């Protein structure tokens, strides 16, 4: 994406979303969306992780500070974690991160946690559509223009 295009009005701005998907559910869900040929916006850059519980808030913060417009974390539904309780821990961690971002007045709306199972290809595609549109409305991440961080 060229610099000029990036600075256009909100409507034709293409959000960059970093997605951390758990190996056992959400990544398989994304895979199913692909193999089922379900269309969804190409704005998300997927990083496969072993568990949503392995996503340290550092990963999310780094993506945001480097200028990602949104960060998505996908995990198994509560109770379905391959490692028993990783997603419960991810949930607490997300609550903490959102709380801190709220205190500092940084946009917590850019960080999403969703439960998507391996059979929910449609839900993955729908969630990506929803998130891309919400972030598009929010506009580019204001942190992106700060180079002195």
């Amino acid at each position, binding site marked *: 994406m060229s*610099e000029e295009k990036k600075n256009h009005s909100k409507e034709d701005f293409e959000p960059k979303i970093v997605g951390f998907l758990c190996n056992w559910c959400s990544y398989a869900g994304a895979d199913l969306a692909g193999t089922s040929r379900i269309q969804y916006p190409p704005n998300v850059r997927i990083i496969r992780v072993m568990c949503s519980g392995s996503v340290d*808030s*550092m990963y999310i*913060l*780094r993506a945001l*500070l*480097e*200028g990602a417009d949104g960060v998505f974390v996908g*995990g198994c539904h*509560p*109770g379905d974690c391959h490692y028993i*309780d990783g*997603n*419960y*821990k991810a*949930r*607490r*961690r*997300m*609550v*903490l*991160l*959102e*709380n*801190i971002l*709220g*205190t*500092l*007045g*940084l946009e917590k709306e850019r960080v999403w*946690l*969703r*439960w998507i199972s391996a059979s929910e290809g449609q839900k993955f595609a729908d969630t990506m559509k929803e998130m891309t549109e919400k972030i598009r409305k929010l506009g580019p991440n*204001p*942190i*992106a*223009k*700060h*180079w*002195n*961080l």
Partner: protein
Amino acid sequence: MTQKALKIKENDVVGSINDFLRQLLSSGKIQALLVPQSTPSKKVVYPVLIADPKKLHSDIIAPVLPVATATVVSKLTKVQPPSKPIGVVMRACQIRALVELVKLNQASLSNIIIIGVDCPGTFPINVYADFPEKKTPTHFLLETLLKKTKDADQYLRSACHVCKDPIPTNVDIVLGFYGIDLDKELIVEAHSEIGRELIKDIPLEEITDDKAREKAIKDQREMKDKQRAVFLKDKEGMKGIEKIAEFFDKCVNCHNCRQACPICYCKECLFDSAVFDAEAYKFIRRAENKGLFKLPSDALLFQLGRMNHMILSCVQCGLCEQACPNMIPLMEVFIPAAENAQKEFAYHPGKDKAEKIPMIVYREDEFLEVGEK
């Protein structure tokens, strides 16, 4: 709880406390005492482990906290706790930090007798070392305690100014300044069985007015709460990337704050690891991403990352701020963040040893809206 009074001899508060501590140490019931004691230059007061009662010349009132006493106790007990009791003299914030370190398996309270001291607050280490008044900082502070003036407030570290709780809890023995005429007596409280056993044979007086202490503690806590509310209200505007980026502009990535923090215990911090080493082309790519790239990089990531990792256990001692070479007033961001985060999880760091750190436990039926929106 047993409450007694220690007679102040010849108007010498520091000397009388030292007599008490010497008797404690010579009783043979404890094998050593960790007390704040002045260096020969009198410039600063360090926690000193004293085995010989004759060498004990502590200054537990000295308003300075050069290092986290909790970290020192962690060092003393982490590999193997002592086989016989040792006493540690600590301020309230450091006892809270020690409780957190115990929960994090970084310290042991086995054979550790905690002697808490009422804390009127501490001055920044450099103010203490080159104190502008004619008296020594200890005498200056004592005088304000005796006359109940607020003269010392101007020198207090900002963290002490808005201290969460200056009265020690989770202790065996308390040495109290509040609720008593400090020119005559000092309060000695035993909060545990072992505490009672230790002060049993030391000559102490009965307390005449046992309600005075309770009231004085309440007043002190209320006063700090008020100052705290004003501080928090004042810092509400610290929001948004513009302000946060400006706030941390002076951060040079030295990591001194992490070093001073009693909670930051990781042997290898992520920020010292090879994660941030990369080939030149990756730095150039990052420069191309925003058009330019500041080095050293990731100062804000360090601050926010560290905050995410320790804020739930933050006891608000303010040592991070004291350690900052560029005098970033870190408490302005860390106190509001700690307050909000700890409230979210209804967690009270340092209050109760049995209370689990929020990030190691969970409930299935909590935060149900998160992940489902």
